[in-house]
């Protein structure tokens, strides 16, 4: 009952000073709005990255040459071994858990064919690649083991190439030249979309790694080996197995660190997620500064308001208000103002995130915890920054307050 009365008193006071209330709330509105938009952008990015990593393929393990320097420490090995075709064969032979394995040899190159030319990535892979990446052809077919064995010059192209080089014709059966080497198109890949980094995955040409290695790359080592297991539960065991096989293949002594890195999708997701999380937090922190400024604005207005309303406080005290009643009134006023500001800020943030997403194409996510957090935070801002002015008001002496001009 008493609390209700005091809230009513505070509410009346807020309504009586519409302009002051709006100006005070403005700081919080902008602050909360900014936090919501920033967190929405960050979480949107996080959600997309997560989705894209899932999209990389099923149960995939990535093996790369060189020691992992995660955490900033490069545990340099005594000797540096590259990944080789022999490593791929050894893994295929000795591993019990691997369902598919493919080296990936990267060869950037200009492709000429169809209606013009196109700068793209040429990846030399094995026949297992579509299984690992969970990536089928939409027309034609993928190359087979005999293509691989005989170093046949065949290629499977991504959607981007298909639409850009062959807008009006069927690319299957046509010829393209990759760095002057003619390849015959035997298949077109299904659309895959962008990577987390915004790279177009469909802007690619896949060819037998044997052919790429001999005709295009000129390098004898392999930068990356992709592997997949048939069941996700097998991933940790498969990772350990690959490690053991690779250590043996590279003849590492027990005291030597790995000179290769084995990561699975979860690791990749975690790395990406922690990066975007840091980004989200950074954005939120920057936006929080405006919330802090909004809070100081509330304190400023409340302090001015206590001085300006000294007489009002005197009147209330003289007719029987306790100091705590006055204090509660001012605290409720500042809290209600910042909560209303927070609520409007959330709506503004919602709209802002939508508009930003519309114009930039970024995905934005406004989550329930963000909204609740923003509300809780703005309430605390009101209480925290309203406390000092409220206490100042409550400690006034009725006679002095009444006499104040």
């Amino acid at each position, binding site marked *: 009952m008493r609390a209700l009365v005091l809230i009513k008193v505070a509410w009346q006071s807020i309504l009586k000073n519409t302009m002051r209330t709006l100006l005070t709330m403005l700081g919080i509105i902008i602050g909360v709005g900014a936090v919501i938009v920033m967190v929405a952008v960050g979480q949107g990015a996080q959600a997309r990255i997560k989705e894209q990593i899932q999209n990389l393929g099923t149960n995939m393990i990535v093996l790369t040459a060189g020691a992992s320097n995660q955490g900033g420490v490069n545990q340099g090995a005594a000797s540096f071994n590259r990944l080789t075709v022999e490593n791929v064969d050894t893994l295929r032979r000795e591993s019990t858990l691997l369902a598919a394995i493919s080296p990936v040899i990267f060869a950037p190159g200009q492709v000429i064919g169809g209606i013009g030319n196109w700068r793209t990535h040429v990846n030399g892979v094995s026949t297992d690649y579509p299984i690992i990446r969970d990536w089928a052809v939409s027309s034609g077919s993928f190359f087979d083991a005999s293509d691989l064995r005989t170093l046949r010059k065949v290629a499977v192209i991504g959607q981007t190439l298909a639409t850009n080089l062959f807008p009006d014709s069927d690319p299957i059966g046509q010829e393209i030249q990759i760095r002057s080497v003619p390849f015959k198109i035997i298949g077109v890949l299904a659309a895959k979309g962008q990577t987390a980094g915004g790279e177009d995955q469909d802007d690619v040409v896949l060819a037998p790694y044997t052919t790429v290695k001999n005709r295009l790359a000129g390098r004898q080592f392999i930068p990356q080996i992709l592997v997949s297991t048939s069941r996700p539960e097998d991933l940790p065991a498969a990772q350990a197995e690959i490690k053991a096989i690779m250590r043996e293949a590279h003849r590492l002594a027990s005291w030597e660190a790995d000179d290769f890195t084995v990561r699975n999708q979860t690791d990749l997701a975690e790395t990406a997620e922690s990066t975007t999380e840091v980004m989200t937090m950074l954005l939120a922190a920057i936006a929080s500064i405006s919330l802090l400024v909004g809070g100081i604005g509330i304190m400023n207005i409340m302090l001015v308001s206590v001085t300006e309303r000294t007489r009002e406080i005197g009147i209330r005290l003289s*007719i029987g208000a*306790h100091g705590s009643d006055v204090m509660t009134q001012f605290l409720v006023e500042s809290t209600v103002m910042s909560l209303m500001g927070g609520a409007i800020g959330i709506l503004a943030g919602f709209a802002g995130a939508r508009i930003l997403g519309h114009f930039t194409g970024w995905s934005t996510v406004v989550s329930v915890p963000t909204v609740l957090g923003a509300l809780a935070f703005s309430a605390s801002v009101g209480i925290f920054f309203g406390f000092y002015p409220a206490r100042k008001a409550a400690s006034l002496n009725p006679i002095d307050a009444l006499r104040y001009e």
Partner: protein
Amino acid sequence: MSSQPVIHTQHLVKVYAMGANQVRALRGIDLSVAPGEFVAVMGASGSGKSTLMNILGCLDVPTEGSYDLDGERVNGLGRNALADIRNRKIGFVFQGFNLLSRTSAVENVELPLLYDRSGKRLETRRLALAALDRVGLSDRGHHMPNELSGGQQQRVAIARALVTQPALLLADEPTGNLDTRTSVEVLSLFQQLNDQGITIVLVTHERDISAYTKRIVELRDGHVIRDVPVAERRLASDDLQALDAVGEVV
């Protein structure tokens, strides 16, 4: 009616410390006011009238001496206890009205009820309207103070002082900001309320005003120098009629 005094003070002293200087505003006031009395406190400016009223109204505390209000020892009580006494037992009317601006008349009158901790007075709006009715402003409840004349504002303030049905009504120069006619109107209201049994102490420095009360207490330099009953008490309602008659002739 009990014979116990509403106000009973013994040797009230108030000293204001102004840096090195000390101002002795009250120098030993002994005062008793019985229920139903209507007292005018008079004296020159600076004689200590307001200081006395503030102590009687529990807005301030004496430096020395004792004060019993309605049989209860008041000096020595804490801030909140004094606030509760102001709320329940005292109605205070100020020279400058002291109404909350941008707050309607009825909300102003309602205010003391909102701070009533007994929790007994639930129908605050109805009680506030009843108090406004008593001061003849039942049709002005929704008006803001700046939409009312000085006399009307003072009557709203009186309604606010009455709404908790206090034992004592204190008024520090309630007519100080009002013209003659409005002053007589306010005094007429005070006389009506006093006839209904409310004890009233008011401060004035005008002889004309004190003539409407029943007893005059005169202060000089913090002492009571005179305490006499009013010999020929005037009736404010008669004077209002006379004023109206003059108005008609003019």
